[in-house]
């Protein structure tokens, strides 16, 4: 009798602690989720603006150079702004996070910046106004070693060249 009571209580305690810990995990998960979707940074912490409403950067998933819906939206805004300001030239700076080998990351940064360049060109910005440079993992914007920091660093930044 006593034993089964103890067991029952223990079970309840375990069950309770599981519920509590599940809540805790869910809470932190949603906090990160609000800034990362599918491994891509969606926050605005590091974002600067070329003009009002024209974000200067797009973000990528680990090892990827595919533009997300949000990135394409940002780049269309950049393209529209560049068409309105035909005297402005830009440099696209491609970056990688610190979790890769240096040489591969240089190539990956170049690939990311070119993905952005291609999209700008599709929306009417001529190639001779855009140059591309890769910094690989050499110039992180966030120096933390955690998934959120890394997601901010996987980026292509459009910088005014003149």
């Amino acid at each position, binding site marked *: 009798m006593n034993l089964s009571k103890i067991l029952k209580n223990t079970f309840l305690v375990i069950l309770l602690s599981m519920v509590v810990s599940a809540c805790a995990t869910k809470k932190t998960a949603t906090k990160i989720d609000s800034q990362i979707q599918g491994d891509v940074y969606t926050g605005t912490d590091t974002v600067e603006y070329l003009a009002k409403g024209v974000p200067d950067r797009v973000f990528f998933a680990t*090892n990827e*150079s595919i533009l997300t819906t949000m990135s394409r939206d940002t780049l269309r805004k950049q393209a529209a702004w560049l068409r309105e300001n035909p005297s402005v030239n830009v440099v696209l700076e491609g970056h990688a996070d*610190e*979790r*890769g*080998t*240096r*040489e*591969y990351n*240089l*190539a*990956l940064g*170049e*690939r990311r*910046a*070119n*993905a952005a360049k*291609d999209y700008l060109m599709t929306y009417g910005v001529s190639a001779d106004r855009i140059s*591309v*440079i*890769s*910094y690989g993992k*050499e*110039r*992180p*914007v*966030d*120096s*933390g*070693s*955690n998934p959120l*920091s890394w997601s901010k660093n996987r980026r292509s930044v459009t910088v005014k060249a003149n």
Partner: protein
Amino acid sequence: MKKFKLILNSILILFISISNSYSLVEVDITRGNLNPLPIAVSPLFQDNNSNTFFEKELEIKDIGSEISKVIENNLKQSGLFNPLSKDAFLQKPDIAHLKPRFEDWALIKSQALITGKVTAANEKLKVEFRLWDVLAGREMLALAFTTVPSNWRRVGHIITDKVYQRLTGEKGYFDTRIIYVSEEGPKTQRIKKLAIMDQDGFNTKYLTLGNELVLTPRFNPTNQMVTYLSYFRNLPRVYLLDIETGMQEVVGDFPGMTFAPRFSPDGKKIIMSFAKDGNSDIYTMDIENRIVERITNHPSIDTSPSYSPDGKFITFNSDRSGYQQIYVMKSDGSNVKRISFGKGLYGTPVWSPRGDLIAFTKLHKGKFYIGVMRVDGKGERLLTENYYQEAPSWAPNGRVLIFYRETKSNDKGEGFTAKLWSIDLTGYNERMVNTETDASDPSWSSLLSN
């Protein structure tokens, strides 16, 4: 660009005698060595006149003792030897050099003994040394070197190489240098300079000033030239640096980024990646006539090329399968074969100077490994696991690898370090290599003298 001179004084080696008699002392370096060979390094002795001369010349007291410390440290770092404490030595250095009392050395459990003598001869440094087999009670090796006094550390390295070779049967790697990237400052604004030092961390010299980002320096086969990536004027290009004259020139002046350079084994070509329109391929450039050849032509990233020592093959890194993997091809770009098939991503392949292995970086489940595999991809062995490490470079005898390791930062970016580490091919003897600053991208030279 400021000129830097590194005096590569050649060392005149005078041969006295080499006795290759049967000996009882032997070191097996093919297995992890848990019982390093006890060895006594008796301080090299000198007469009073020589002592006075070197003290004035080098501002070092007792140069003989200092040279013996260089040897001792090298032997200890190799992990194969256990240099015994000098406090236990019973015999004086000068007497021991003439004829050791082997019973005394056996008593302190020494199996091998190094003795020597330093003299000033025509303002030069003359060093004689002998290696003795304590158990067999006989001389194993005797040599003498003459050089300029400022080269005294190199004499210590050359003696270590001779001792290592005599006792292991393999060439040493002590009279060598490491070129690397010196790092300072916060992660987001890291200042990087090319630096060169002796293999044991001494004689550091900085070859660039830190005004532009520099990465991945590599020696040519004669150690006089270095190829590396520089962001000079914000144009990432492959450069060539003559260490002795300090002359630098761009060699990868393509309409886009050139990176990941290495010399061909004959030193005549530089192989590198060229990135254009989001695609990186491998090219070679003949240094003399500047003829460029395209080696790979694939819409994936092809990078980190490294020649086999006979120059017939190239190993490289490609993500043509979807992820970073290691490939081998003929040096003309034909016959491309993937060789890495384990779980995870593979990068930075580098061919062993012995030709039989390829060292690499592996990334799997958030950990980084330095490993080796045979050139057909079989026999993969992971030597070390860590939070972040990459870019192995081989010691010239193919027995040791040097690489760099970074530590994790906290959320504020604090706690970040980058250091050079070395590990034996056996997976034993993992050690941090001393550098004045944080360091990355090490490249090991070949032997400066033979």
